[in-house]
C-alpha cells in the first residue's frame, strides 16, 4: 500500500461544535505499525474513521499515494467500500446472522473470486488465527477473544493494503490481551500489512508500534518511535500522558511555586545561565534515585531533601512517595527500600534526566544539548 497522507485534516460534527480533529498532518508509510495514542475523546478514533472513509472531512484532504481519496477542495470523496482497507471495530461488529465461515468469506464473495480461491484464502486465514474449528458457529456462540480473532480474520481474508484497528483489545481480559498483542505483532510480520492501531493504553502502544502518534483534543502532539515519545516528549501533555507512575512536574510559575521547584530553578540558573524562559521541569520517577547520606549524592546532580511518606510495593519494584513542605514526588526503585516512614532522604537525578519545557509547555530542545553535554564535562 502506498503512503497514506493526511493534510490539514479537520472534522467537526456541526457548525457550533468544537473540532473533533483539527488541522491534522499525518503520514503513514507502507509496512508501518502506527499507534494513535491519546485519552478518550482526543479524536483518534475519528482520525481512523476518516482514513477508512466512514467519516467525511470538514477540511483538508487525505491521499493514498498520489490518489486523492477525500478532499473538499477537489470535491472528491471515495466511499469506504472503494478504499480497499480493513477495519476491526472495537465492538468487533460481526454479522450475527452469518456463520464464522460466512463472516470471513463475505468480502471475498463481494470481490467475485472463484470458489476454489475463496475457500483456500478463508482456510488459510482461519488457520492462521486458529478459528477454523468454529467455522459453522454463529458469533454469539463465541467468546470475546474468539470473536476478536474472527473480526481480524474477516478483514485479513481480503488482504487489505492497510489494516485499521479501533481499540480491538479493550474488551478483552488482561491475559487474553497479552496473547492478542503477540498475535498482532506476529500477523504484522506475516502479512506485511500496514497497521494503524487506535488505543488509549500507553503500554499497548509502546509494545506494538513502530511509530506512535500522540493526540490530544483533536490535534497531533508528537509523532515518533516509542523511545522518542518516552525519552523526548515534545511537550508537557505527552510527558504526563505517557509513563506510570506519571512524570514528576516541577512548575516554575510565579504563583504557587513549590520549594522543590524553587530548588530546581536555582540549580538550573546557576549551572546553565544561558537557559531562559523555563516554564517547568519534568523528572520521570525511575530517573530519580535516593540516598540517606549527603555524600552518596553524585556530583552535579539535581538533589533535595524530603521526607518519606509512603512506600508502595508494586511487585518487583517500589514506589516511594516523598514530601517536602509544599511538594510531593514519586520515585521508582527496583531495590528493596530500607527506609522508615518519616525518615529524611535526599533524592537526586542526573541533569540529562531533566525534561525542560517552556512556559507554553513545549520542550526546549536546546536544553537537551546543554544538559547532556554537562555529563561529558
Amino acid at each position, binding site marked *: 500500500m502506498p503512503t497514506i497522507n493526511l493534510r490539514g485534516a479537520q472534522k467537526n460534527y456541526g457548525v457550533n461544535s468544537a473540532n473533533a480533529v483539527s488541522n491534522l498532518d499525518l503520514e503513514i508509510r507502507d509496512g508501518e505499525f502506527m499507534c494513535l495514542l491519546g485519552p478518550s475523546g482526543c479524536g483518534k478514533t475519528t482520525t481512523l474513521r476518516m482514513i477508512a472513509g466512514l467519516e467525511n472531512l470538514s477540511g483538508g484532504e487525505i491521499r493514498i499515494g498520489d490518489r486523492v481519496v477525500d478532499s473538499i477542495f477537489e470535491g472528491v470523496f471515495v466511499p469506504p467500500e472503494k478504499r480497499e482497507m480493513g*477495519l476491526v471495530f472495537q465492538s468487533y461488529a460481526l454479522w450475527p446472522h452469518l456463520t464464522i465461515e460466512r463472516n470471513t468469506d463475505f468480502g471475498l464473495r463481494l470481490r467475485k473470486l472463484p470458489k476454489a480461491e475463496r475457500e483456500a484464502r478463508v482456510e488459510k486465514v482461519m488457520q492462521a488465527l486458529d478459528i477454523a474449528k468454529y467455522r459453522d458457529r454463529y458469533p454469539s456462540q463465541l467468546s470475546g477473544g474468539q470473536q476478536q480473532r474472527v473480526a481480524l480474520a474477516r478483514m485479513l481474508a481480503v488482504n487489505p493494503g492497510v489494516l485499521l484497528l479501533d481499540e480491538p483489545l479493550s474488551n478483552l481480559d488482561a491475559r487474553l490481551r497479552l496473547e492478542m498483542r503477540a498475535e498482532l505483532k506476529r500477523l504484522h510480520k506475516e502479512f506485511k500489512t500496514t497497521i494503524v492501531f487506535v488505543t488509549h493504553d500507553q503500554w499497548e502502544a509502546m509494545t506494538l508500534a513502530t511509530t506512535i502518534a500522540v493526540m490530544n483534543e483533536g490535534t497531533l502532539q508528537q509523532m515518533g518511535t516509542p523511545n522518542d515519545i518516552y525519552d523526548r516528549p515534545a511537550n508537557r501533555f505527552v510527558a504526563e500522558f505517557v509513563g506510570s507512575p506519571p512524570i514528576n512536574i516541577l512548575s516554575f510559575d510565579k504563583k504557587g511555586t513549590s520549594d522543590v521547584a524553587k530548588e530546581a530553578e536555582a540549580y538550573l540558573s546557576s549551572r546553565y545561565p544561558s537557559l531562559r524562559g523555563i516554564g517547568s521541569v519534568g523528572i520521570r520517577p525511575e530517573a530519580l534515585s535516593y540516598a540517606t547520606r549527603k555524600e552518596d549524592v553524585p556530583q552535579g546532580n539535581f538533589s533535595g531533601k524530603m521526607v518519606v511518606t509512603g512506600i508502595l510495593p508494586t511487585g518487583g519494584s517500589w514506589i516511594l512517595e516523598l514530601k517536602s513542605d509544599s511538594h510531593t514526588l514519586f520515585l521508582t526503585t527496583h531495590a528493596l527500600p530500607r527506609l522508615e516512614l518519616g525518615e529524611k532522604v535526599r533524592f537526586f537525578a542526573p541533569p540529562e534526566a531533566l525534561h525542560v519545557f517552556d512556559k507554553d509547555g513545549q520542550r526546549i530542545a536546546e536544553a537537551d544539548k546543554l544538559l547532556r553535554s554537562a555529563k561529558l564535562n
Partner: protein
Amino acid sequence: MAFLSDSAKASPTAGGEASAPSAWQVWRYRLKVASREPTTLIGVLTALLFTYLIVVPIISIVLDAVRVQFGHERRLGKDFGDLTLYYLDRTFTSPVSVDLFWRPLFNTLSVAVGAILLSLLIGTILAWLISRTDMFGRRWFATALIVPYMLPAWTFALAWTTLFKNRTVGGQPGWFEALGWTPPDWVAYGRFPITIILALHYTPFVILLFGSALRRFDSQLEDSARILGAKRYQVAMQIILPLMRPALMSSMILIFAKCLGEFGVPYVLGLPVKFEVLSTSLFRSIASRQTGVAGVVAASIMLIGIITLMIDARLVREARRFVTIGSKGSMNRQSRLGKLRLPATGFAATIFMLSVGLPLLTLFLSTVMKLPAQFTLDNFTLDYWIGQDLHTVALQTGVLLSPDLWAAAKNTLMIVGLASIASGILGLLVGYVVIRTPVRALSVYLRQVTFLPYLVPGIAFAAAYLSLFAVPRGPMPALYGTVTILVLALMADQMPYASRAGISAMTQLGKDPEEAAQIAGAGWFRRMMSIVIPIQKGSLVTGVLLPFISGIKGLSLFVILAVPSTDVLTTYSLRLVDYHYTQAANAVVLIIAAIAYLGTLAAQKLTKTNLAEGLGS
C-alpha cells in the same frame, strides 16, 4: 471551469495550512457525500410522503374550522373558503355550544377521571401482587390480566348491553330484563358503565407501567430505610411512593389520552341516553355534514391530546432523574402475604373474571341462545353462527354463512394487511434514515412527523382525512368511499408504532455491522439485502404484526372513513348493533377478539418477547 481546476491544483499546497474552502466547495463536497448513497434520497421521499399523509390532513381540518364551508356561504355572507370565526363561535359560545362541545367535554373529562381513578386503584394493587408478592399463580395472572387490553374495548360494551339492556332501546331484551329485573338507565347506559368499562380496559396499562417500575425498584433502597429505623408504612410513603410517582403519572396520562379518542364504548353505551363525549360529538357533526364544527371539535381533541402527551413527555424526562443505577444488588424481594395469600389470589381472579371471563362468556352465550337468560337445553342453538333459512327480515343465515361477514373479513384482511405491511416496511426505512442520514434536520423531522399521529386521537385523525380527501384536490381524486383512503389513513395512524419499532431496531443494531460490510466492499444495496434486512427480520415481522393487530380491532378510523362497500369487521359488527342483530354482532366481535388475541400471542411467540410489555409504552 478554468477557475475550478485552478482551485483544485492549488489545494495540495494549501492543504497543510488552515485555508478555508469556499462555500461553493463545501456545498459541492457535501452534495457529493450525501448523494453517494440513497439514504438521504429515501429520507426526503418518505418525509414528503408523511408530510402529505400526516401533516397536510391535520392542517386541512384546522383550516376547515376557520373557513366558510360549503352551504354556509349565504348565511355568513361570505364566499366558500373565506376566513370566518363562525364555527369557533358556534362550537364554543353559541347556545348550542353546550350540546356541541361543553357537555361532551365535561362528560369526556368525568369519564376519563373516573376510569383513571378506578384503574389506578385496581391496577396498583394487582401490579404489586403480581410483581412483589407470593400470590398464587403470579405468572399466569401476569399475562391473563393484560388480556383486556388485547381485546377491543367495545367488546365489553356489547357484553354490558347484552346483560343490562333495558327497554329504552329496542331489540332483544337484556338478560336481567329477561330475568325480571329492569336495570335503571344509569346502570344500563351512560356514564356509569362507560367509566367501568374503560377502567377495566385500561387497567393493564397501570399493571404494566407500575409493575415494571416496581420490578426495577431495588429492594436495597427499602432495606436501607428499614435499617435506619423506618417503619413499613414510612418506607412505603417516603421511599416507594415518591419513586413510583413517575410511573403512576405516566399511566394516568396515557389512560387519559386513550379515553379521549375512545369511540366504540361511548357510541354503544352512550347513544341510548344521549350521553355524548367529544368523540361521539365529532362523529355526529361529521354524520350531519357540519364540516366546520367538526373541524373545531377535531382540532380541540387534537389540542387536548397534544397537551396531554407533552405533559407525559415532560414527566418521563423528569422521571429519568430517578433512574437509579441498577447494580448487581438490585434485588426484587417478595413480600409474604401470609393469611392474605388466598384472598389476594381471589381478588386477582375476580378482576380477571370481571374483565375477561364474564364479558367473553356473556357474548358467547348470547350467540348460542335464542332467548336471553333462559338456560334450558332447547333454548340453545347454533343458528346464529351456522344456521340457514332463518325466519328473519335480513341476515337469514348464521353469521358464518353470511356473505357479508366474509366480504368484511376479506376487506379487513386486505385493508389492514396492506396498511400494516406498508407501515412495517416504511417504519424500518424511517428507522434506517433517522439513524443513518448525515442530514440532521431530516432525521429530526422524520422522527417527529411519524410520531405526530400518536398525539392525535384516531377519530380526529380520521376526520382530518375526511376533510382532505373527501373532495378532489389537484391531481388527487376524491378518495372517500375507496379502499385507498382506509389503507392510507390506517398506515399513517400506525406510523408512530412502526417508526418507533424501526428506530429502536436500528439503534440497537448500531452502525458497526453495516460499516464493517462497507469496509469489506459492499455498496448500499448489497448492505441492505445481506446485512440490514436479514438482521432486522424479527423486528420487521413485529413492525407488521403490531399494526395489524391494532388495526383489526380499531374502530374509530373506520367508522368515519368506511362506507358499506368497504365494510371491515368492526364497522360490520357496529352496523349489526345498529340493526339490533345482537347475536350476530356479538359473534363478529368475538371473531375480532379471537383474531386480535391470537395475533398477539403469535407475535409474542415469533419475537420471543413479552409483547404485552411493549404495548404499554
